[in-house]
Protein backbone atom coordinates (compact mmCIF):
# COMPACT_ATOMS: atom_id res chain seq x y z
CA UNK A 1 0.00 0.00 0.00
CA UNK A 2 1.28 3.47 -0.89
CA UNK A 3 1.65 5.98 1.93
CA UNK A 4 -0.51 9.11 2.04
CA UNK A 5 1.34 11.86 0.15
CA UNK A 6 0.25 14.36 2.74
CA UNK A 7 0.93 12.65 6.10
CA UNK A 8 2.54 9.27 5.40
CA UNK A 9 -0.25 7.13 6.88
CA UNK A 10 -1.54 4.25 4.74
CA UNK A 11 -3.56 5.76 1.87
CA UNK A 12 -7.18 4.87 1.09
CA UNK A 13 -8.04 7.32 -1.69
CA UNK A 14 -6.26 6.93 -5.01
CA UNK A 15 -6.52 9.19 -8.03
CA UNK A 16 -4.72 8.32 -11.20
CA UNK A 17 -4.78 10.19 -14.47
CA UNK A 18 -2.89 8.71 -17.41
CA UNK A 19 -1.05 11.37 -19.39
CA UNK A 20 0.29 10.70 -22.86
CA UNK A 21 4.09 10.85 -23.13
CA UNK A 22 4.51 11.45 -19.40
CA UNK A 23 4.37 9.61 -16.12
CA UNK A 24 0.70 9.19 -15.13
CA UNK A 25 -0.41 11.70 -12.52
CA UNK A 26 -1.05 9.91 -9.25
CA UNK A 27 -2.41 11.08 -5.93
CA UNK A 28 -2.61 8.86 -2.84
CA UNK A 29 -4.18 10.11 0.36
CA UNK A 30 -5.51 8.70 3.62
CA UNK A 31 -9.18 9.30 4.41
CA UNK A 32 -8.64 12.23 6.88
CA UNK A 33 -6.31 14.05 4.43
CA UNK A 34 -8.73 13.48 1.53
CA UNK A 35 -11.49 14.93 3.69
CA UNK A 36 -9.30 17.88 4.59
CA UNK A 37 -8.87 18.63 0.88
CA UNK A 38 -12.64 18.24 0.34
CA UNK A 39 -12.03 15.33 -2.04
CA UNK A 40 -14.09 13.13 0.20
CA UNK A 41 -17.27 14.26 1.94
CA UNK A 42 -19.36 11.77 3.89
CA UNK A 43 -17.53 8.81 2.30
CA UNK A 44 -18.30 10.03 -1.21
CA UNK A 45 -15.84 11.34 -3.77
CA UNK A 46 -16.37 14.95 -4.80
CA UNK A 47 -16.00 15.11 -8.56
CA UNK A 48 -15.76 18.91 -8.68
CA UNK A 49 -12.79 18.85 -6.28
CA UNK A 50 -11.08 16.26 -8.47
CA UNK A 51 -11.68 18.36 -11.58
CA UNK A 52 -10.22 21.31 -9.70
CA UNK A 53 -7.02 19.38 -8.99
CA UNK A 54 -6.76 18.49 -12.65
CA UNK A 55 -7.31 22.09 -13.73
CA UNK A 56 -4.56 23.28 -11.38
CA UNK A 57 -2.28 20.45 -12.42
CA UNK A 58 -2.84 20.65 -16.15
CA UNK A 59 -4.02 24.23 -16.67
CA UNK A 60 -0.71 25.15 -18.30
CA UNK A 61 2.11 27.39 -17.12
CA UNK A 62 0.58 30.63 -18.26
CA UNK A 63 -1.53 30.52 -15.10
CA UNK A 64 -0.71 34.15 -14.32
CA UNK A 65 -2.05 35.35 -17.67
CA UNK A 66 -5.02 33.02 -17.42
CA UNK A 67 -6.03 34.28 -14.03
CA UNK A 68 -6.81 37.67 -15.59
CA UNK A 69 -9.27 36.25 -18.15
CA UNK A 70 -12.95 37.14 -17.85
CA UNK A 71 -15.80 36.08 -20.11
CA UNK A 72 -17.37 39.18 -21.71
CA UNK A 73 -20.77 37.46 -21.92
CA UNK A 74 -21.34 35.99 -18.47
CA UNK A 75 -18.66 37.79 -16.48
CA UNK A 76 -17.11 34.60 -15.09
CA UNK A 77 -13.43 34.94 -14.14
CA UNK A 78 -11.09 32.17 -15.15
CA UNK A 79 -10.10 31.84 -11.48
CA UNK A 80 -13.74 31.12 -10.58
CA UNK A 81 -13.80 28.38 -13.21
CA UNK A 82 -10.62 27.01 -11.66
CA UNK A 83 -12.04 26.90 -8.18
CA UNK A 84 -15.51 25.61 -9.10
CA UNK A 85 -14.73 23.41 -12.09
CA UNK A 86 -17.78 24.68 -13.94
CA UNK A 87 -18.02 27.12 -16.84
CA UNK A 88 -20.54 29.97 -16.79
CA UNK A 89 -21.85 30.06 -20.36
CA UNK A 90 -21.20 28.62 -23.83
CA UNK A 91 -19.00 31.63 -24.71
CA UNK A 92 -16.47 30.62 -22.05
CA UNK A 93 -15.09 28.06 -24.47
CA UNK A 94 -13.85 30.98 -26.61
CA UNK A 95 -13.02 33.34 -23.77
CA UNK A 96 -10.94 30.77 -21.85
CA UNK A 97 -9.57 29.01 -24.94
CA UNK A 98 -5.90 29.25 -23.90
CA UNK A 99 -6.60 27.60 -20.56
CA UNK A 100 -9.11 25.09 -21.85
CA UNK A 101 -7.13 23.63 -24.74
CA UNK A 102 -4.48 21.87 -22.58
CA UNK A 103 -7.22 20.79 -20.17
CA UNK A 104 -9.33 19.25 -22.96
CA UNK A 105 -6.20 17.56 -24.28
CA UNK A 106 -5.63 16.03 -20.83
CA UNK A 107 -9.23 14.93 -20.27
CA UNK A 108 -10.10 13.70 -23.75
CA UNK A 109 -6.71 13.53 -25.54
CA UNK A 110 -8.42 15.40 -28.36
CA UNK A 111 -9.63 18.97 -28.79
CA UNK A 112 -11.96 18.79 -31.79
CA UNK A 113 -15.48 17.38 -31.84
CA UNK A 114 -16.33 14.43 -34.06
CA UNK A 115 -19.86 13.07 -34.10
CA UNK A 116 -23.43 14.23 -34.09
CA UNK A 117 -24.23 17.79 -35.13
CA UNK A 118 -27.55 19.55 -34.77
CA UNK A 119 -29.35 20.12 -38.06
CA UNK A 120 -30.60 23.40 -36.71
CA UNK A 121 -28.15 26.23 -36.05
CA UNK A 122 -28.67 29.19 -33.74
CA UNK A 123 -31.03 31.64 -35.43
CA UNK A 124 -30.86 34.75 -33.29
CA UNK A 125 -27.46 36.43 -33.37
CA UNK A 126 -26.16 35.66 -29.91
CA UNK A 127 -24.44 39.04 -29.55
CA UNK A 128 -27.55 41.21 -29.69
CA UNK A 129 -29.59 38.91 -27.47
CA UNK A 130 -26.76 38.84 -24.95
CA UNK A 131 -26.64 42.63 -24.99
CA UNK A 132 -30.39 42.70 -24.34
CA UNK A 133 -29.92 40.23 -21.48
CA UNK A 134 -27.26 42.46 -19.98
CA UNK A 135 -29.63 45.43 -20.19
CA UNK A 136 -32.35 43.28 -18.65
CA UNK A 137 -30.31 42.40 -15.59
CA UNK A 138 -29.31 46.07 -15.22
CA UNK A 139 -32.99 47.05 -15.42
CA UNK A 140 -33.86 44.52 -12.73
CA UNK A 141 -30.98 45.74 -10.60
CA UNK A 142 -32.32 49.29 -10.88
CA UNK A 143 -35.82 48.01 -10.15
CA UNK A 144 -37.04 49.39 -13.52
CA UNK A 145 -39.60 46.64 -13.90
CA UNK A 146 -41.53 48.13 -16.78
CA UNK A 147 -38.35 48.37 -18.84
CA UNK A 148 -37.41 44.83 -17.71
CA UNK A 149 -40.72 43.44 -18.94
CA UNK A 150 -40.25 45.14 -22.31
CA UNK A 151 -36.75 43.72 -22.62
CA UNK A 152 -37.91 40.26 -21.60
CA UNK A 153 -40.61 40.28 -24.30
CA UNK A 154 -38.13 41.54 -26.88
CA UNK A 155 -35.68 38.74 -26.02
CA UNK A 156 -38.41 36.15 -26.17
CA UNK A 157 -39.56 37.49 -29.53
CA UNK A 158 -36.04 37.36 -30.94
CA UNK A 159 -35.49 33.86 -29.68
CA UNK A 160 -38.68 32.45 -31.09
CA UNK A 161 -38.60 34.24 -34.45
CA UNK A 162 -34.85 34.37 -35.04
Amino acid sequence: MKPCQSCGQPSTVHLCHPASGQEPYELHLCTPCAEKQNLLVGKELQISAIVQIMITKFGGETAEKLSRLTCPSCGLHYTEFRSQGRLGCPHDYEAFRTGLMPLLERIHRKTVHIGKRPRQRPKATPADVLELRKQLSEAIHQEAYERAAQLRDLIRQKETNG
Partner: protein
Amino acid sequence: MMNFDELARSPGEWLRGTGPESDVVVSSRIRLARNIVNFPFTNRASAMQRGELEQLIRERFTKSDWGFEFNYLTVHTLSPVDREFLRERQLLSRELAGTEGPRGVAFEVQETRSVMVNEEDHLRLQVLRSGFQLDEAWQDIDGLDDKVEERITYAFSDEFGYLTACPTNVGTGMRASVMLHLPALQFTKQLEKVFRALQKINLAVRGLYGEGTRASGDFYQISNQVTLGKDEGTILKEIREVIPQIIHYEREARKALMQQYQPLVQDKVSRAYGTLKAATMMSADEMMDLLSTVRLGIALEMIDDLTIPLLNMLFLQTQPSHLIKLTGRSLTNEEHNVERATYLRHKLGELSNKN
Protein backbone atom coordinates in the same frame (compact mmCIF):
# COMPACT_ATOMS: atom_id res chain seq x y z
CA MET B 1 -51.31 15.14 -12.03
CA MET B 2 -49.63 11.80 -11.97
CA ASN B 3 -50.19 9.16 -9.39
CA PHE B 4 -47.01 8.39 -7.47
CA ASP B 5 -48.61 5.57 -5.50
CA GLU B 6 -49.45 3.76 -8.69
CA LEU B 7 -45.96 4.35 -10.02
CA ALA B 8 -44.55 2.94 -6.77
CA ARG B 9 -46.04 -0.45 -7.51
CA SER B 10 -44.37 -0.86 -10.92
CA PRO B 11 -40.66 -1.54 -11.41
CA GLY B 12 -39.69 1.03 -14.08
CA GLU B 13 -37.76 0.10 -17.17
CA TRP B 14 -34.25 -0.36 -15.81
CA LEU B 15 -35.32 -2.92 -13.22
CA ARG B 16 -37.56 -4.93 -15.51
CA GLY B 17 -34.89 -7.66 -15.34
CA THR B 18 -35.71 -9.10 -18.72
CA GLY B 19 -33.20 -7.74 -21.23
CA PRO B 20 -30.30 -9.58 -22.88
CA GLU B 21 -27.63 -11.06 -20.54
CA SER B 22 -29.77 -10.17 -17.53
CA ASP B 23 -28.00 -12.74 -15.35
CA VAL B 24 -25.08 -10.26 -15.24
CA VAL B 25 -26.25 -7.00 -16.87
CA VAL B 26 -28.91 -5.12 -14.92
CA SER B 27 -29.42 -2.18 -17.23
CA SER B 28 -28.01 0.03 -19.98
CA ARG B 29 -28.19 3.79 -19.81
CA ILE B 30 -27.22 6.66 -22.09
CA ARG B 31 -27.44 10.33 -21.27
CA LEU B 32 -26.83 13.40 -23.40
CA ALA B 33 -25.89 16.78 -21.91
CA ARG B 34 -27.40 19.69 -23.84
CA ASN B 35 -27.63 23.43 -23.27
CA ILE B 36 -29.79 26.11 -24.78
CA VAL B 37 -28.24 28.87 -26.81
CA ASN B 38 -28.17 32.44 -25.39
CA PHE B 39 -28.51 31.42 -21.75
CA PRO B 40 -25.75 31.11 -19.16
CA PHE B 41 -25.27 27.58 -17.79
CA THR B 42 -27.52 26.65 -14.87
CA ASN B 43 -24.99 27.37 -12.08
CA ARG B 44 -24.36 30.88 -13.49
CA ALA B 45 -28.00 31.69 -14.35
CA SER B 46 -29.95 34.04 -12.08
CA ALA B 47 -33.08 32.78 -10.34
CA MET B 48 -35.11 34.62 -12.94
CA GLN B 49 -33.21 33.11 -15.86
CA ARG B 50 -33.62 29.63 -14.39
CA GLY B 51 -37.32 30.25 -14.05
CA GLU B 52 -37.50 31.53 -17.61
CA LEU B 53 -35.59 28.48 -18.89
CA GLU B 54 -37.72 26.03 -16.95
CA GLN B 55 -40.89 27.66 -18.24
CA LEU B 56 -39.66 27.74 -21.83
CA ILE B 57 -38.68 24.07 -21.74
CA ARG B 58 -41.88 23.06 -19.92
CA GLU B 59 -43.95 24.72 -22.65
CA ARG B 60 -42.03 22.89 -25.35
CA PHE B 61 -42.55 19.58 -23.58
CA THR B 62 -46.20 19.93 -22.65
CA LYS B 63 -47.55 21.81 -25.65
CA SER B 64 -46.30 19.78 -28.57
CA ASP B 65 -46.80 16.32 -29.95
CA TRP B 66 -43.84 14.03 -29.24
CA GLY B 67 -45.37 10.87 -30.67
CA PHE B 68 -45.50 9.50 -27.13
CA GLU B 69 -46.79 10.71 -23.79
CA PHE B 70 -44.48 12.74 -21.56
CA ASN B 71 -45.23 13.41 -17.91
CA TYR B 72 -43.75 16.75 -16.89
CA LEU B 73 -43.14 17.54 -13.23
CA THR B 74 -41.89 20.83 -11.80
CA VAL B 75 -39.39 19.39 -9.34
CA HIS B 76 -39.28 22.50 -7.11
CA THR B 77 -42.96 22.06 -6.25
CA LEU B 78 -42.53 18.40 -5.22
CA SER B 79 -42.08 17.30 -1.62
CA PRO B 80 -38.63 16.00 -0.60
CA VAL B 81 -40.09 12.47 -0.38
CA ASP B 82 -41.40 12.64 -3.96
CA ARG B 83 -38.04 13.93 -5.18
CA GLU B 84 -36.20 11.10 -3.44
CA PHE B 85 -38.76 8.68 -4.84
CA LEU B 86 -37.93 9.80 -8.39
CA ARG B 87 -34.22 9.61 -7.61
CA GLU B 88 -34.56 6.02 -6.43
CA ARG B 89 -36.12 5.27 -9.82
CA GLN B 90 -33.15 7.02 -11.54
CA LEU B 91 -35.44 9.64 -13.07
CA LEU B 92 -33.72 12.39 -11.07
CA SER B 93 -30.04 12.80 -10.32
CA ARG B 94 -28.90 13.46 -6.78
CA GLU B 95 -28.12 17.02 -7.81
CA LEU B 96 -31.60 17.66 -9.22
CA ALA B 97 -33.34 15.99 -6.27
CA GLY B 98 -31.35 18.09 -3.80
CA THR B 99 -30.74 21.60 -5.13
CA GLU B 100 -33.03 24.63 -4.93
CA GLY B 101 -34.71 26.71 -7.62
CA PRO B 102 -36.86 26.12 -10.70
CA ARG B 103 -36.18 22.75 -12.30
CA GLY B 104 -38.13 19.95 -13.90
CA VAL B 105 -38.26 16.45 -15.24
CA ALA B 106 -40.12 15.00 -18.21
CA PHE B 107 -40.51 11.27 -18.55
CA GLU B 108 -42.43 8.67 -20.49
CA VAL B 109 -44.96 6.50 -18.68
CA GLN B 110 -42.70 3.45 -19.21
CA GLU B 111 -39.80 5.46 -17.72
CA THR B 112 -37.51 4.59 -20.64
CA ARG B 113 -36.95 8.12 -21.92
CA SER B 114 -36.60 11.09 -19.61
CA VAL B 115 -35.27 14.64 -19.61
CA MET B 116 -33.99 16.56 -16.60
CA VAL B 117 -34.29 20.35 -16.73
CA ASN B 118 -31.83 22.77 -15.06
CA GLU B 119 -29.43 20.10 -13.90
CA GLU B 120 -25.74 21.02 -14.22
CA ASP B 121 -26.65 21.41 -17.90
CA HIS B 122 -30.00 22.88 -19.02
CA LEU B 123 -31.06 19.51 -20.37
CA ARG B 124 -29.97 16.02 -19.50
CA LEU B 125 -31.63 13.54 -21.86
CA GLN B 126 -31.63 9.97 -20.59
CA VAL B 127 -32.62 6.53 -21.84
CA LEU B 128 -32.71 3.51 -19.54
CA ARG B 129 -33.14 -0.03 -20.79
CA SER B 130 -33.19 -3.36 -19.05
CA GLY B 131 -30.24 -5.70 -19.71
CA PHE B 132 -27.48 -5.17 -22.27
CA GLN B 133 -29.14 -2.91 -24.88
CA LEU B 134 -26.75 -0.07 -25.65
CA ASP B 135 -27.58 0.08 -29.37
CA GLU B 136 -31.30 0.20 -28.72
CA ALA B 137 -30.71 2.86 -26.06
CA TRP B 138 -28.72 4.91 -28.57
CA GLN B 139 -31.48 4.69 -31.17
CA ASP B 140 -33.98 5.87 -28.56
CA ILE B 141 -31.92 8.79 -27.35
CA ASP B 142 -30.72 9.85 -30.81
CA GLY B 143 -34.38 10.08 -31.88
CA LEU B 144 -35.36 11.94 -28.72
CA ASP B 145 -32.45 14.36 -29.22
CA ASP B 146 -33.64 15.05 -32.80
CA LYS B 147 -37.11 15.80 -31.51
CA VAL B 148 -35.85 18.15 -28.79
CA GLU B 149 -33.64 19.88 -31.34
CA GLU B 150 -36.65 20.64 -33.55
CA ARG B 151 -38.11 22.61 -30.64
CA ILE B 152 -35.08 24.09 -28.89
CA THR B 153 -31.84 25.56 -30.27
CA TYR B 154 -28.78 23.97 -28.66
CA ALA B 155 -25.52 25.67 -27.75
CA PHE B 156 -23.13 24.05 -30.24
CA SER B 157 -19.74 24.87 -31.70
CA ASP B 158 -18.28 23.33 -34.85
CA GLU B 159 -14.99 22.94 -33.05
CA PHE B 160 -16.01 21.75 -29.57
CA GLY B 161 -19.40 20.16 -30.29
CA TYR B 162 -22.22 20.37 -27.76
CA LEU B 163 -21.13 22.94 -25.17
CA THR B 164 -21.50 21.86 -21.55
CA ALA B 165 -21.00 23.41 -18.12
CA CYS B 166 -18.21 20.96 -17.30
CA PRO B 167 -15.42 20.44 -19.85
CA THR B 168 -15.48 16.70 -19.04
CA ASN B 169 -18.78 16.42 -20.97
CA VAL B 170 -18.10 18.66 -23.97
CA GLY B 171 -18.24 17.23 -27.51
CA THR B 172 -20.84 14.51 -27.81
CA GLY B 173 -22.15 15.27 -24.30
CA MET B 174 -22.71 11.55 -24.10
CA ARG B 175 -22.22 9.25 -21.14
CA ALA B 176 -23.10 5.63 -21.87
CA SER B 177 -23.10 3.18 -19.00
CA VAL B 178 -23.88 -0.43 -18.31
CA MET B 179 -24.77 -1.66 -14.83
CA LEU B 180 -23.33 -5.05 -13.98
CA HIS B 181 -23.82 -7.46 -11.10
CA LEU B 182 -20.40 -8.99 -10.38
CA PRO B 183 -20.63 -11.00 -7.13
CA ALA B 184 -18.44 -13.91 -8.27
CA LEU B 185 -15.59 -11.66 -9.45
CA GLN B 186 -15.85 -9.89 -6.11
CA PHE B 187 -15.86 -13.20 -4.18
CA THR B 188 -12.88 -14.59 -6.08
CA LYS B 189 -11.05 -11.23 -5.69
CA GLN B 190 -10.59 -10.65 -9.42
CA LEU B 191 -12.46 -7.34 -9.59
CA GLU B 192 -9.38 -5.15 -9.13
CA LYS B 193 -7.76 -6.77 -12.14
CA VAL B 194 -10.83 -6.17 -14.32
CA PHE B 195 -11.13 -2.55 -13.21
CA ARG B 196 -7.46 -1.83 -13.85
CA ALA B 197 -7.88 -3.16 -17.39
CA LEU B 198 -10.93 -0.94 -17.88
CA GLN B 199 -9.15 2.17 -16.66
CA LYS B 200 -6.35 1.51 -19.12
CA ILE B 201 -8.84 1.84 -21.97
CA ASN B 202 -10.33 4.98 -20.40
CA LEU B 203 -13.57 3.53 -19.07
CA ALA B 204 -14.79 4.54 -15.62
CA VAL B 205 -16.19 2.26 -12.92
CA ARG B 206 -18.74 3.59 -10.44
CA GLY B 207 -21.21 2.39 -7.81
CA LEU B 208 -24.93 1.83 -8.18
CA TYR B 209 -26.27 5.38 -8.17
CA GLY B 210 -23.55 6.93 -10.32
CA GLU B 211 -21.01 9.63 -9.72
CA GLY B 212 -19.26 9.45 -6.39
CA THR B 213 -21.38 6.66 -4.92
CA ARG B 214 -19.88 3.51 -3.47
CA ALA B 215 -20.47 0.08 -4.95
CA SER B 216 -23.28 -1.49 -3.02
CA GLY B 217 -24.49 -5.08 -3.45
CA ASP B 218 -21.73 -5.84 -6.00
CA PHE B 219 -23.40 -3.58 -8.60
CA TYR B 220 -21.01 -1.63 -10.81
CA GLN B 221 -21.49 0.89 -13.59
CA ILE B 222 -19.03 0.90 -16.47
CA SER B 223 -19.05 4.09 -18.54
CA ASN B 224 -17.04 6.12 -21.03
CA GLN B 225 -14.93 9.04 -19.83
CA VAL B 226 -14.00 10.62 -23.13
CA THR B 227 -16.68 12.72 -24.83
CA LEU B 228 -14.58 14.83 -27.21
CA GLY B 229 -12.86 13.72 -30.41
CA LYS B 230 -14.66 10.40 -30.73
CA ASP B 231 -18.04 9.99 -32.34
CA GLU B 232 -20.95 8.33 -30.55
CA GLY B 233 -20.63 5.13 -32.58
CA THR B 234 -16.98 4.69 -31.62
CA ILE B 235 -17.61 5.38 -27.93
CA LEU B 236 -20.47 2.86 -27.87
CA LYS B 237 -18.40 0.31 -29.77
CA GLU B 238 -15.61 0.50 -27.20
CA ILE B 239 -18.03 -0.24 -24.35
CA ARG B 240 -19.94 -2.82 -26.36
CA GLU B 241 -16.74 -4.73 -27.04
CA VAL B 242 -15.53 -4.86 -23.46
CA ILE B 243 -18.81 -5.75 -21.70
CA PRO B 244 -19.10 -9.29 -23.19
CA GLN B 245 -15.59 -9.98 -21.87
CA ILE B 246 -16.57 -8.94 -18.35
CA ILE B 247 -19.77 -11.00 -18.62
CA HIS B 248 -17.61 -13.93 -19.69
CA TYR B 249 -15.21 -13.48 -16.74
CA GLU B 250 -18.10 -13.23 -14.28
CA ARG B 251 -19.73 -16.38 -15.65
CA GLU B 252 -16.39 -18.22 -15.54
CA ALA B 253 -15.91 -17.09 -11.94
CA ARG B 254 -19.43 -18.34 -11.10
CA LYS B 255 -18.58 -21.71 -12.66
CA ALA B 256 -15.34 -21.89 -10.69
CA LEU B 257 -17.23 -21.02 -7.49
CA MET B 258 -19.60 -23.90 -8.13
CA GLN B 259 -16.77 -26.32 -8.74
CA GLN B 260 -14.63 -25.33 -5.78
CA TYR B 261 -16.98 -23.98 -3.13
CA GLN B 262 -20.42 -25.32 -3.98
CA PRO B 263 -21.43 -26.23 -0.37
CA LEU B 264 -20.15 -22.91 0.96
CA VAL B 265 -21.97 -20.89 -1.71
CA GLN B 266 -25.16 -22.93 -1.24
CA ASP B 267 -25.03 -22.20 2.50
CA LYS B 268 -24.40 -18.49 1.96
CA VAL B 269 -27.31 -18.27 -0.51
CA SER B 270 -29.70 -20.22 1.72
CA ARG B 271 -28.83 -18.12 4.77
CA ALA B 272 -29.29 -14.90 2.80
CA TYR B 273 -32.67 -16.05 1.48
CA GLY B 274 -33.67 -17.28 4.92
CA THR B 275 -32.77 -13.96 6.52
CA LEU B 276 -34.78 -12.02 3.93
CA LYS B 277 -37.77 -14.25 4.67
CA ALA B 278 -37.49 -14.17 8.46
CA ALA B 279 -35.84 -10.95 9.71
CA THR B 280 -37.99 -8.44 11.58
CA MET B 281 -35.65 -5.49 11.13
CA MET B 282 -33.36 -4.80 8.20
CA SER B 283 -31.15 -1.90 7.14
CA ALA B 284 -30.83 -0.92 3.49
CA ASP B 285 -27.15 -1.93 3.48
CA GLU B 286 -27.81 -5.38 4.87
CA MET B 287 -30.60 -5.87 2.38
CA MET B 288 -28.36 -4.93 -0.54
CA ASP B 289 -25.83 -7.57 0.51
CA LEU B 290 -28.50 -10.24 0.97
CA LEU B 291 -30.26 -9.45 -2.31
CA SER B 292 -26.93 -9.59 -4.10
CA THR B 293 -26.25 -13.07 -2.71
CA VAL B 294 -29.78 -14.25 -3.52
CA ARG B 295 -29.47 -12.82 -7.03
CA LEU B 296 -26.34 -14.93 -7.47
CA GLY B 297 -28.26 -17.92 -6.08
CA ILE B 298 -30.97 -17.46 -8.72
CA ALA B 299 -28.35 -17.31 -11.49
CA LEU B 300 -26.71 -20.48 -10.12
CA GLU B 301 -30.12 -22.19 -10.00
CA MET B 302 -29.91 -22.70 -6.25
CA ILE B 303 -33.22 -20.89 -5.76
CA ASP B 304 -36.13 -21.82 -7.98
CA ASP B 305 -39.14 -19.96 -6.57
CA LEU B 306 -37.76 -16.42 -7.02
CA THR B 307 -37.06 -14.60 -10.30
CA ILE B 308 -34.75 -11.68 -11.08
CA PRO B 309 -37.66 -9.36 -12.05
CA LEU B 310 -39.30 -10.04 -8.68
CA LEU B 311 -36.00 -9.54 -6.87
CA ASN B 312 -35.60 -6.17 -8.63
CA MET B 313 -39.10 -5.21 -7.51
CA LEU B 314 -38.20 -6.00 -3.89
CA PHE B 315 -35.03 -3.95 -4.19
CA LEU B 316 -36.82 -0.88 -5.53
CA GLN B 317 -39.83 -0.97 -3.26
CA THR B 318 -37.76 -1.23 -0.10
CA GLN B 319 -35.80 1.95 -0.89
CA PRO B 320 -36.61 4.58 1.77
CA SER B 321 -38.98 6.81 -0.21
CA HIS B 322 -40.73 3.88 -1.85
CA LEU B 323 -41.36 2.42 1.63
CA ILE B 324 -42.87 5.73 2.71
CA LYS B 325 -45.14 5.66 -0.36
CA LEU B 326 -46.19 2.09 0.28
CA THR B 327 -46.88 2.55 3.99
CA GLY B 328 -48.44 5.98 3.42
CA ARG B 329 -46.73 7.69 6.36
CA SER B 330 -43.38 9.16 7.32
CA LEU B 331 -40.95 6.79 9.02
CA THR B 332 -38.08 7.06 11.48
CA ASN B 333 -34.87 5.18 10.75
CA GLU B 334 -35.88 2.31 12.98
CA GLU B 335 -39.38 2.19 11.49
CA HIS B 336 -37.80 2.05 8.05
CA ASN B 337 -35.90 -1.07 9.06
CA VAL B 338 -39.04 -2.65 10.53
CA GLU B 339 -41.19 -1.80 7.48
CA ARG B 340 -38.51 -3.04 5.10
CA ALA B 341 -38.29 -6.42 6.89
CA THR B 342 -42.08 -6.67 7.11
CA TYR B 343 -42.46 -5.98 3.43
CA LEU B 344 -39.84 -8.58 2.47
CA ARG B 345 -41.32 -11.21 4.84
CA HIS B 346 -44.77 -10.58 3.47
CA LYS B 347 -43.80 -10.69 -0.23
CA LEU B 348 -41.53 -13.72 0.09
CA GLY B 349 -44.12 -15.46 2.29
CA GLU B 350 -46.74 -15.02 -0.44
CA LEU B 351 -44.31 -16.70 -2.79
CA SER B 352 -43.78 -19.80 -0.58
CA ASN B 353 -47.55 -20.17 -0.10
CA LYS B 354 -48.03 -20.29 -3.85
CA ASN B 355 -45.71 -23.28 -4.22
